[in-house]
């Protein structure tokens, strides 16, 4: 069990808790979509799992080597080419120089950017940048990959393609993925399990399993999307004054 969250809570200073009694178990190789409206502490939860922040209560179990992280904006270093960005991740991991080059090319090929390695981030489109960013997070070679709304800023056409891409890469690499999103369709499209977080404080209120049939049957997927959306709106309505 790579990730276990037990009664996890987080508050900043004396403010209201952001997360309260969050419980979740994420299996090895599982793809979990973490869904919630704004203010549900999705990003805070991800930061806690990544070890960037500490919880104020509860316990968590994460892989000892930490987690790879992919941000909403690609966050590539503009002074490096696409390849050098990936090589930097390998270098900081302690991979030797000759091996770095081969490994970076391999990862570029994996995200279908084998020919764009020498381009700089500003010469790439938003989707290409996110793919380089994905390759960089894979270069970290962690079993656990945390993704914080990585496709939120992309156009619809690119996003649809990247969903396919991410699913393919997940299957090829066998990573455990925790994918944060506020897009119900995205959660249903990608996750094997969709966890719905309530807002203020964030807590896992319900979860749904997504089967292989949902991947090919749009009607089935649409139905599930409808059910989850209704539950999400119920959560949001609770905050109406």
């Amino acid at each position, binding site marked *: 069990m790579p990730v276990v969250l037990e009664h996890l809570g987080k508050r900043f200073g004396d403010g209201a808790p952001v997360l309260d009694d969050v419980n979740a178990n994420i299996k090895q190789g599982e793809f979990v979509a973490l869904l919630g409206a704004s203010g549900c502490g999705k990003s805070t939860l991800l930061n806690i799992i990544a070890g960037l922040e500490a919880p104020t209560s509860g316990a968590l179990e994460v892989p000892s080597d930490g987690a790879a992280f992919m941000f909403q904006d690609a966050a590539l270093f503009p002074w490096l080419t696409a390849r050098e960005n990936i090589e930097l991740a390998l270098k900081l991991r302690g991979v030797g120089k000759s091996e770095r080059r081969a490994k970076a090319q391999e990862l570029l090929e994996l995200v279908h950017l084998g020919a764009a390695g020498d381009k700089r981030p500003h010469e790439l489109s938003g989707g290409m940048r996110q793919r380089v960013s994905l390759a960089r997070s894979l270069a970290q070679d962690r079993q656990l990959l945390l993704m914080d709304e990585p496709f939120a800023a992309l156009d619809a056409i690119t*996003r649809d393609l990247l969903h396919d891409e991410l699913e393919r890469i997940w299957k090829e690499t066998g990573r455990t993925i925790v994918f944060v999103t506020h897009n119900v369709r995205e959660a249903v499209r990608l996750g094997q399990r969709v966890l719905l977080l309530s807002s203020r404080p964030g807590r896992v209120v319900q979860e749904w399993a997504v089967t292989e049939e949902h991947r090919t049957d749009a009607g089935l997927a649409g*139905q599930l999307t409808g059910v989850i959306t209704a539950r999400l709106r119920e959560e949001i309505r609770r905050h109406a004054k």
Partner: protein
Amino acid sequence: MPSNQTPVAETEPVVEPVETRPAAHVHAALTRTSTGNEDLRELESGLDSLQSDADRKHRIEWSRILLPIAALAVLILVWQFYVSLGVKRRDLVPGPLDVMTQMGVLWNEGKLQEAVWTSLQRGLVGFLISVAIATPVGLLLAQVAPLRRAFGPLISGLQVLPSVAWVPAAIIWFGLTDATVYFVVFMGAIPSIINGLISGVDQIPPQYRRVGTVLGASRLQMALQVILPAALPGYLGGLKQGWAFSWRSLMAAEIIAVGGTIGFGLGSLLDQGRILSDMTVVMSAILLILAVGILIELLVFGPVEKRLLRRRGLLAGSTR
């Protein structure tokens, strides 16, 4: 919400397509939209080429070379015109030709070469040593908050203090030696470079540090692989200003401190012209000091800065 009969698709095909590939089953956003790795690769490469700009070729921009030359020619003509009006005595305001002749004389005496070489060498050596001192100090101040709180105001103050103010002190401490000149150069350049580097570090998007942390960078790796390159545009600005301060301080020091074992630089030439009341020598020295400044900018800082900005995609729309 949609029922089973109507597939939900953001990019639903309007016309039922001919069955060449299973495009009819594409329900973007909810289900798989591509039909395997090859299909995905093809789609992505199509989208990539649609979304990226075509490479632009770099040509020699003649206006970049011709316009400054034209501006210089106009200025010289205005100067010559003013002189030929005869408003002032010729020995007070010499014409371009008089100054050129004087430069020729200085060249033949070997004085011009000696002055330019001495000053340039000192300026560059002083500047390079300043860079070597200021860079680690700047990084340390930018990264360690208590140090910065303690020394930041002092460094800013030193940057504002005209380094000429150090000349009397330096002469008393070091006498009329090269040490005096270098000391003044350091006091001019080092604070500027430190401040440039610090402000460069301050402007780094916080995201870069987070990425560095997530990628597992140690403190030193963070400083060298992330902070320093990210701060490079600001650092380069600091270097430019540092060079300007070195060069100015050097000239001030050379004008004030003459004799001893201090060699013969452009400042010394300028001072000699003043003592001899020879305006052509004074003008020659001023123009040479100016020319060195322009050449360093054109040959060193200009290209470096342009390359840096272009590589980061910061040049679009600028007038550089």
